[in-house]
């Protein structure tokens, strides 16, 4: 387990996913995330990391992660130099109300990301995408 209070670099490959997830979840626990709320960041982490791992780079690349408590929030930052992916601009492909046949599987993940975090920010500049996800450590939970 590695501390993530400062930026840490990981190879953006599937084989590193479990390590990244475990490091983030350990940081979330250390920041005071209760067991009942652990699922909340985990749902978003998988979606965002797999998006970077699978789609950001054509050639091997890296992802930088930082995770820490900020007041009453747990804040998670991701950065990469791959293709831009704005979680706030993606279409809502989940499309509640549509029949099964018309639903897009890809939209489920971003739907959960948006539901899992209380605040999401995205910046792309100088060929670097930076996304920030925060949720309240208070027991009142969206999930």
């Amino acid at each position: 387990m590695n501390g993530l209070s400062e930026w840490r670099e990981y190879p953006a490959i599937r084989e590193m996913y479990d390590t990244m997830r475990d490091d983030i979840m350990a940081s979330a626990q250390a920041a005071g995330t209760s067991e009942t709320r652990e699922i909340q960041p985990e749902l978003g982490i998988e979606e965002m990391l797999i998006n970077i791992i699978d789609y950001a780079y054509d050639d091997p690349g890296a992802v930088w992660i930082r995770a820490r408590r900020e007041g009453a929030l747990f804040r998670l930052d991701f950065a990469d130099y791959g293709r831009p992916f704005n979680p706030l601009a993606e279409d809502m492909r989940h499309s509640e109300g549509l029949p099964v046949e018309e639903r897009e599987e890809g939209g489920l993940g971003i739907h959960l990301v948006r539901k899992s975090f209380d605040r999401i920010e995205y910046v792309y500049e100088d060929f670097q995408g930076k996304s920030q996800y925060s949720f309240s450590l208070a027991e009142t939970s969206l999930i």
Partner: protein
Amino acid sequence: MASEIVQKETKLANGWLAWSVEGRIDISTADSVYQSGEAIVEREEKTVLDMSGVVYISSAGLRVLLRLLKKAKKEGKEFTVAGAAGAVKTVLTYSNMDTLLNLRESLDDL
């Protein structure tokens, strides 16, 4: 910590094939779960995924359920889920998949 799953099939007296999965359905196990489910849906008319042993499901797992439901509907078959509890049930509800999949409390509710 890598995810591991255990899968089992049981033919029920009412004609349903109960497919039970134990563990986490996430990015590490989703492909394996889908491959098993795809084979089951192809050969069975009525399949219920018993999720009472599932401790976590991510969006990758939800996509598996949606793909299997689409496949079953396309082939004129039935696919549903039962036994989801705790955080797993919450995620199904959260994503509206509980309604879509006609989630049952247990296998007794088929």
